């Protein structure tokens, strides 16, 4: 179990009502489960794909600036003081 800072952006922030929070979780999957519990249906409806129970298309999760797809996806282990970012679809220039 690690204590990490989770940062929320744009439309995800509108749901959580905060920029960031500290959370305890051992990996990304557990972290998302805890977020689902804490923020309930509004969070799940916007962020989670009901078919896969993972993030919806174009939503991204990064640990210390690295996409989880390049780590161990939802099984990515978390360490104390990691920064986890949860982005809605955003990009461009």
């Amino acid at each position, binding site marked *: 179990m690690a204590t990490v800072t989770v940062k929320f*952006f744009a439309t995800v922030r509108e749901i959580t009502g905060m920029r960031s929070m500290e959370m305890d979780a051992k990996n990304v999957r557990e972290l998302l489960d805890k977020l689902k519990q804490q923020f309930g249906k509004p969070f799940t409806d916007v962020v989670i794909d009901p078919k896969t129970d993972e993030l919806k298309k174009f939503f991204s999760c*990064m640990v210390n600036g690295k996409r989880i797809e390049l780590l161990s996806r939802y099984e990515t282990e978390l360490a104390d003081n990691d920064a986890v970012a949860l*982005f809605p679809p*955003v990009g*461009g*220039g």
Partner: protein
Amino acid sequence: MIQGVGGKVIWVDLTKGKIEKRPIEKKLVEKYLLGAGYLSKVLFDSIPTGIDPLSPENVIGFATGLLTASMFPQSSRHVVAALSPLTDVWGESHAAGFWGPELKLAGYDAIFFTGASLDPVYLNINDSTVELLSADDVWGRDVFETDDILRERHGKRARLIYIGQAGENLVRFAAVMNDRDRASARSGLGAVMGSKKLKAICVRGTGRIEVADPKKYMDTMDEFYRRMLANPFTPGRAKYGTTNLVEMMQHIGRLPSYNMRQGVFDGYEKISGETITEKYLVKPRSDWCCLQRCARYTSVKEGPYKYEGGSPEYETQSALGSRCGNDNLESVLFGHHLANQYGMDTISLGGTISWAMEAWDEGLLTAEDTDGIDLSWGNHASIVKLIKMIAFREGFGDVLAEGSARAAGKIGRGTEKFVMTVKKQEIAGQEPRAQKSMGLAAVTAARGADHLYAFPVLDEAGFDDEIKERFGEEYLPEMAERLNPKYKGIMVKECEDFMVVVESLGLCKYGTQIPPEFYYEDVALAMKVHNGLEFTRGDLQIIGERIVNLNRLFNVKRGVTRADDNLPDRLTKEGAPLGPSKGEVVELDQMLDEYYLKRGWDNETGIPYASTLKRLGLVEEASGMEIPD
């Protein structure tokens, strides 16, 4: 006959005051489409080499795309092109709004201006009436005043393109503005209009656009609308535009700060899109037929930066904000408004001011050089003051109005090493050490440093599915990794080919490239039902390649080689000093080798091989040039 277009092209000889209407040539359209491709060919043939871009010999063109003014989502765009006074090579810039659709409704697809007028003029188009009128009463006026006066005269429904004082004063990064606060900002094309004493193009069009297959057209557009609305990007884009990129870019270390010394900025939250939306947003807005709706109005209610008008986008937040070490958001909003009012590219503006700030920080520029203006990082009052001085070429503003590369050339003293440009154009808001594809895209773009010519955003947050679909599974995972240089040459090449097609159709990059909703098959279908033109994906890819190669030949003719496809040493030799991309450099040579190979260009010189030009039907264009076998 091509349907869904205006059908005519206007040629204006400003020296003689002569106007000619010509039919659009179908053969040319089949080879180059309209928009960017069409301008590429016509201007390749008509702009002589060895001329001063601000002389009457330069030719400036304006064009709509094949799908401009259609119901395709985000089909509002037009293109402007000429020899650039900033880069001395191919200059091209695009904007959305309503001017392009209005031109098409008036029955025209493109306008070219040759020569130069002795006195200020503007072109007035009212359906079949096309006339040159005196611009004496608007010359010297800003963009908003010009808009007010000419719409009062020609009717509120008229749509306009114009320059502000920056274009008149030949600022090398002056923008061509339209619809008050939309800008074809890059390449300094506003100065080309200024050099020709051409203040504006006013258009009123009341015609109709006949489509090739009305029933299939409606069905296709209906489906495209549904797809666009259902795309997960759409709600966030409509709410924040591109302004919420600041926080994401900070998070991946890609937010240019302190003149690109680094890709993270302590004050990022203060200039973020979330803060703009919370405190300054008046309302979102959109261009013609747009479902992405990235534009918006903002206001500052009181204080020195009071204004109401267009909102900055991500590029301006980074250019006038983090890049200048400036976390005073109201000054960024107001600075953006001033740049629109005087008509200037905010990217080059911020890039030039931040060059001066770094030189000041290093003690290489002093108050003696700057008319006593303090250029410490984040001095927002100085930034705002300089914007006006640049537009009017007053004092130190006259030096900066030349752009950072020329300004450093004039000042010397080692300030050259802080110039963050490619081919003399300032690099946009993508710190490339944090996204390698953007570093490559900046050097290969025909118009000098530019993120939009290729707009390789698929690796930004890593769109694996789209990469698989557009390129193939064999390129994963490397192509989706923003810090990995592998396969970026292939990605940038393919993205360039697609993006020039998109700019030739008059579509926005939002909806085609990000979100990556519509691709070749979709636009081919739209062209079939709208224009009655049959193209396969393969045909369009060849056309894209042809346009990119022709732009390259335009530049090669003017001396461009591989040596010019280069980034400042800071980005290729010095590791990013901090942030999530700490220690990274741009592995430019590796990516360029891959890019040239994929393009069929000589690896040493960067010039297209004869076999490449033959395959693309560009042999005649290259005649007289030294082309490698």
